[in-house]
Each structure stands twice: as C-alpha cells, then as structure tokens.
C-alpha cells in the first residue's frame, strides 16, 4: 500500500507522469473501436429486454427438485400460446416467463403450476406486465436520461465553464454507448432496475469527472499569465495528480456495488439486486475510464483551440522547444521538477 501511496507523491510532483493528453489519439481510437462494436452489437443483436419492457408474465415457484420439464408440462396444460422461457434459478427455484396474458390466462398458469408442484397459489411470486406498460417505462427512462443530461450540463456550465460541461457530457455519452453496447454484446437482460442503475452511473461518472475537472481548473486558472506550460500540459499534470484519488474513489464505490452483485447474483439468482448492481458495476468501470482518458483530452482539445491558449502554446514551445501537445508534460530530472519547485503564486481566492 505504501508503495502505492509513494506513487501518489511522485505523480503529484510530476516526477512520474503518464501522458494522458498527448496520447489522446490512442485513447480515442480504443474508445472508437468499442463504440463501433457497441453500435454493431446493438444493430445486429439488439438489447435483451426484460418482460417489463415487452409486456408478459413471470412466475417463480420455490420448490426443491422442480424441473424445467415439469414446469413446461404445467404451462402447456394451461393452454398458453407462444413460446415460454423456463429456467431454474439456484437449486430450488424455477421461473416461467410468458408473453402478455390476460387475467384468466395468468390465473390458469398459476393454478397449473400450483397443482403441478403442490404449492399454494399465494406462494408463487408473480409479475404481470401489461403490453402498453413497457412503452410508458421506456418513455420515462428516456425523459429521465435527457432531463438529466440537460440539467447537469447547465449546472456544470455554471459551476465550471461551458467547455468543461461539453467535455463532461461527451464522456457521459461515451459511457452510455459502451455500457449499452456491452449489454447488447453479452445479452444481459435489460430491466427497469438496469435502467435505474444506469442512470445512477451517469451521475457517478460525472462525479469522477468533476473531481478531475476541479483540479484542472485549479491548475489552469492563471495559466496565461506565465509561459511555463501549455493548457494541455497543465491538464495532464492535473489528471496525474488526481489519479490516485480517482482510483481510490472508484475502488471504494465498486466495493459495495460488487458486494450487491455477489449477493444478488449468488444468493437470489436474479432480480432487482443483480440487474441494478450489474449495470452499476459495468458503468462504474467505464465511467472511471472516461473520466481519465476521455473527458480531460476532449477538454484540452477544446481549450487549445482558443487564441489565448494557442499563443500560450507558442510561448511555451519557444521556451522548451518541444512540440506542443504531444510532448511529455514534465520530464524526470532537469530544472523543472514540478509544482513544488515552481515560482509560487501569491494570492488565490
């Protein structure tokens, strides 16, 4: 652990530096490939929507030794049209999922299952979703998503600066694509719980980005007053300085989510807990990646286009005779040893 903390110190002083900004083409390429894969998976396979979105009924019987064949026989005897999906959950549960049924058909399936497995009708856990319900839920989820993006963008534009808001939203959209892509690719079920987890993750991914941006802003507040470093270099230093923090916060956030996933998938087999935590888990990982590898480079690129920043880059370029953004930020050794040894600013708010 202490070795890791020591790394924090070296990263902070710029003795160890990972070039996040300069190698942005590499990160963009990696993300681009993932996004293309996601789009391909989405258009070829589509999402595996749960019955909440399609409409349908789900019956779960708890009975040790129940087999899929017995359940299928019961469902067939109830005269249910169409294909039903029947699967075992854990060792003593069996779940039957059908298409949209009317009340009489639902009762028939419950009765047939209760008779087959000799359990009480009331002990069968049932979920019935009307066909029009899915549309409603989908619509609301989309409203929530767009409302969230707009509110956060406005807020960040006010709290930080408009370009930071754009970069943060770019990172979030990136997260959305990749997470949805993973769901399409692997074929995980998408349920309302997934959608909640997903929306939460958007918030969390932004939380991470906010932490990084806060440091960037601090490092670049008076950047044009001197010619020590370009915007990109200062940004890169900020990302390196917050790297340990980002990793710690992400890890700490992953621990409880991982435990929900473990318990939800392991003990309960399926349901709210598993769906929610799986989405959180995937989203957290993607969100951490984008807050380091996507948001800061996009921000740096946007800001470098400003005349003031270009002029600064020229001044800095003249001083150190290195190519502007692709240069390593602060090299080990030499006279510029990082913030500690740099002339100090006297006043700050």
């Amino acid at each position, binding site marked *: 652990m*202490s070795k890791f*903390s*020591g790394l*924090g*110190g070296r990263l902070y*002083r710029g003795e160890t530096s990972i070039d996040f900004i300069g190698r942005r083409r590499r990160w963009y390429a990696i993300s681009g490939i993932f996004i293309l894969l996601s789009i391909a998976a989405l258009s070829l396979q589509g999402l595996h929507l749960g019955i909440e979105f399609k409409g349908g009924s789900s019956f*779960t019987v*708890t009975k040790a030794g129940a087999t899929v064949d017995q359940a299928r026989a019961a469902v067939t005897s109830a005269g249910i049209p169409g294909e039903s999906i029947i699967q075992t959950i854990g060792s003593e549960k069996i779940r039957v999922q059908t298409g949209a049924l009317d*009340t009489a058909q639902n009762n028939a399936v419950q009765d047939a299952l209760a008779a087959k497995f000799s359990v009480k*009708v*009331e*002990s*069968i*856990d049932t*979920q*019935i*979703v*009307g066909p*029009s*319900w899915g549309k409603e*839920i989908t619509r609301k989820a989309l*409203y*929530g998503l767009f*409302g*969230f993006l707009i509110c*956060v963008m406005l807020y960040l534009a006010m*709290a930080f600066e408009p370009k930071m808001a754009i970069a943060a939203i770019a990172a979030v959209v990136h997260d959305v694509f990749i997470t949805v892509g993973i769901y399409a690719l692997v074929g995980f079920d998408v349920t*309302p*719980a997934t959608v*909640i987890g997903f929306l*939460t993750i958007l*918030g969390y991914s932004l*939380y991470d980005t*906010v*932490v990084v941006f806060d440091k960037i802003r601090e490092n670049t507040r008076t950047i044009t007053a001197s010619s020590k470093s370009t915007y990109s270099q200062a940004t890169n230093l900020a990302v390196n300085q917050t790297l*340990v*923090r980002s990793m710690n*916060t992400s890890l*700490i*956030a992953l*621990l*409880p*989510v*991982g*435990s*929900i996933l*473990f*318990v*939800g998938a392991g*003990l*309960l087999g399926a*349901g*709210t*807990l598993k769906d*929610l935590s799986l989405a959180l888990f995937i989203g957290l990982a993607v969100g951490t990646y984008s807050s380091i590898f996507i948001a800061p480079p996009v921000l740096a690129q946007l800001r470098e286009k400003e005349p003031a920043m270009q002029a600064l880059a020229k001044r800095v370029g003249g001083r150190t005779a290195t190519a502007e953004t692709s240069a390593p930020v602060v090299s080990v050794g030499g006279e510029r040893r990082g*913030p*500690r040894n*740099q002339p*100090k600013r006297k*006043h700050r708010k």
Partner: protein
Amino acid sequence: MSTTTKPAKTSARPGRSLAILGLVLIALTGLVFVQSATAVRLGLDLRGGTSVTLQPRIAPGESGKVTNEAIDQAVSIIRQRVNSLGVAESEVTAQGSGTNRQIVISVPGDTGRRVVELVGQTAELRFRQVLATATSTGTTDATATPVTGVSAALNAKFVALDCTKAENLQGSGTDAPTDTIVSCDRAGTNKYILAPAEVLGRQVSKASASIDTQGGSAWYVSLTFNGEGTKAFGALTTRVTTLATPLNQVAIVLDGLVVSAPRITEAIPSGNAQITGSFTQLEAQDLANVLKYGALPLAFDRGEVQQVSPTLGADQLNAGLLAGGIGLGLVLLYSLLYYRGLGMVTVGSLTIAGSLVYLLFLLLGKWIGFTLTLAGIAGAIVAIGVTADSFIIYFERIRDEIREGRTLRTAVETGWGRARRTILVADFVSIIAAVLLYFFAVGGVRGFAFTLGLTTLIDLIVVFVFTKPIVTILARMNFFASGHPLSGLSAKSTGTLPVAKEA
C-alpha cells in the same frame, strides 16, 4: 502552488459542530421513541404482498381527456374497494405528475388474486329507480319487507344484506345496467332494491355544486343532461314522480353503491335538474364530482402486477442486508488499510451517517409513509461508496497540501477549502440525478432515487459537521501531526520529501 489560503471558517470551533451533531442525534432518537416509530416500514417486496400499477386512459367509445379530478375520483373508488378487503396498511395512491399519473395499489399479505380482480374494473355512474329501501342496522332487519314485483330470491338477498359489513361496501363494478340489484349506500346505513338503470353517467353533461343564497343558504347540486339523457331522465321522472315513497326516489349509483337517492318532486323534461337536501358544502361538492367524473368512466390498463410471497420477501430482505454488511465491511477495511489512522475517521463518519439514515428511515416511515424497498436498500448501499468518496477527496487533498510542504494543521484547513468545493459540486450532481429519477419514475425506482437523494444529503451534513471538525481535532494530536507511520500521514505514505515547515 500557492502559499496563502484563507482558512475555512469552521476551523475555529470544531467542538461546536460536534456538539450540534450530538444534539441532533439525541433529538432524533428522542423523536423516534416519542412517535413510537421503532421499526422501519418495509415495502411489499421485502415482506410479501401484491402491488398493482394502473395506467388510466379514456374508456373505449368515450371522448375527452384524463383529468386530474378524474384520476382522484378513480383513486377514491379504488380505495373504497381495496378497504373492503380489510387488510391493514393497504394503500391506493396516484403517483407521477400531471395527467400522466399512475394509480398504485399495494396490499400486504397473501391476497394476490382478489386484489387484481378487484381493482381493474371500470366504475360507471348509473341512475336507477328505488324499489325498496330499509335501514341496515346489522344482522336482523325487521323493517325489510318483501317487495312485490321483485323475484323472491332478490327479496331474500335484500333481507339478508348487511351493509355494516365492509365486504358489502366494496363495489365491484359488476352490477350490469340491465339487472335489478340490491345495493348499500356508501355510508353503510341504508340498503336498497334498485330497478335497472335508465340513465347512464355518460349522459350527464354538466354538474356543479352551488349555494342558494335566497333560500336560507342551502347547498344544492345542479346537473344537466345531454340530448339522450334529457329524454331518458324526463321519462324516468315523469313516471316516478306520482308514485309513493320510496318508488319516487331515483338512486345515483356509482360502482354498485348508492351515492344519493333523491326524491323526484316533479317531472323534469328540460334536462336541467337540481338536487336539494341538507347538504354541507363538502357533501354537495362530492356529489357534484361523482356526477361529473362518473360521467367520464376511466378505463385502466393494468400496467404491472407484482405478487411477492412472504418467503421471497424475507429472502430479499436478508440478501439486501447481507450485501450492505459485506459492502460496508469492505469499504471500512480498505479505508483502514490505505488510510490507517485517517481510516478511523471514515469508520466514525460512516457510523454517524448510518445512524442518521436509520433514524430518518424510522421517522419518515411515520411522517410521510416512507417504505423501504429492495431498490431502496440498494440505493443506500451504493451511497456507502459515494459517502466514503467524499472522505477520500478530503484526505487526498490533505495529502496534496502536505506534499506542497505544509504542516498538517495548515494542510487540514487549506485542503478543506478546496475539497469542500469539489464535494459540493459532485454531491450536487448526485442530487440532480436522484431528483430527476424520483420525478420520472414509478414504484421501485422512486424508492431507489429517494434513498440515494436522502443519503447524499446526509453525506453532505456528515462531511461538514463531523468529518471536517474531527480531522481538525485530530490534527492537533501529536500522533497525526508528527506523521506517525500508522497515522496515514507519514512522509512515506504521502510520498513527500521530509515534511518541511512553512516559511
């Protein structure tokens, strides 16, 4: 990077914040006992029960819009039906906003199928001639004399009908308009034999409650029928007005229950009628509402039905608690390993946050009917991570300041000034997410959003009134200030060159 930073204001009196926090905790605990809210209200998915979500829409063949008032009317009709089941803590509420609201019915326990059958029916307003009436006092009804022109079976049913029993007041909406029926009034005091319906609710075009200022300030309800209704109501009133009581009464029946049974004093061929009586303002307005919105029967799309057996409920509760326990344990373990002495601050802060959340769950259950669902538990567990993150942001800031060459006591204050801002912005983003989720979603999602928002707020409170003050106090202790290897602030663990005193 800089040498001067205004110390944060809270630095001066760390003791005061802690004292206030202590008082708040004691006050909340006291309230819990005073209000005897000693158990968290669990949602149906954690204790078993049935929940049905209905999406109101305009019935086929009707025109118009789903209005707020119509939904309120539907909620009260369904509530009447659900209450007749006699299950404690059943709830019927409209959720969501505007005219796009859903009606959510939750009934604990094993009543599954009955609830589903009960709530989905459309209620319609009908006008029926009264054939007989009697006071319903309980088991024996001597006053209920057989009525001629009605089948013996129906007469027997009338005699046996006990309107004081809740199940007879449920109004199932199964009364066919063409049948002669027996029925109770809504209050359960009178029972009736009623002729087939002659005027239907959809034939009422207008209804309102007004006050007659000349005739002794009495409230009355005026109603107007459409073309069809005018003809039918005209014929009905012309026929019954000359008959003897109770045959000259016309019952207004909603959902199988008599709302009012006014006596017809004259033939009303004009389509404009007034119902007078000793109404209070409230009664008159209720009757007008019934007439108005009963005229627009809503149909319901059964959005979602969820039946959870008590066994599954208990399993889900245990799983949720177990996941929370493991998650909390891992977070604490990691904090202690990584931050050593400072990790203890995390332990303390999470304990305080946890106590506040638990106390608020108890009190909100009492005050606003907050129920904890599985999604809510998940929200609280996720919040453990988010809460711990604010501590990390602060701790890492302190370390950064130490790397800048500050002493611990200064680092704690300057670091706070900067971390505070980051924490505020980041938590605010979480709160935006929670609020939007809450308003755009129904059912379980709302539970998740609510706990997430609540815990984020508590996180803010704890960071400000506990974590920061306690770190200030600890910074004065030699163990931390000298950078003891176990303090989490040693030169080795921050990776600083030997701690330099500030010039």
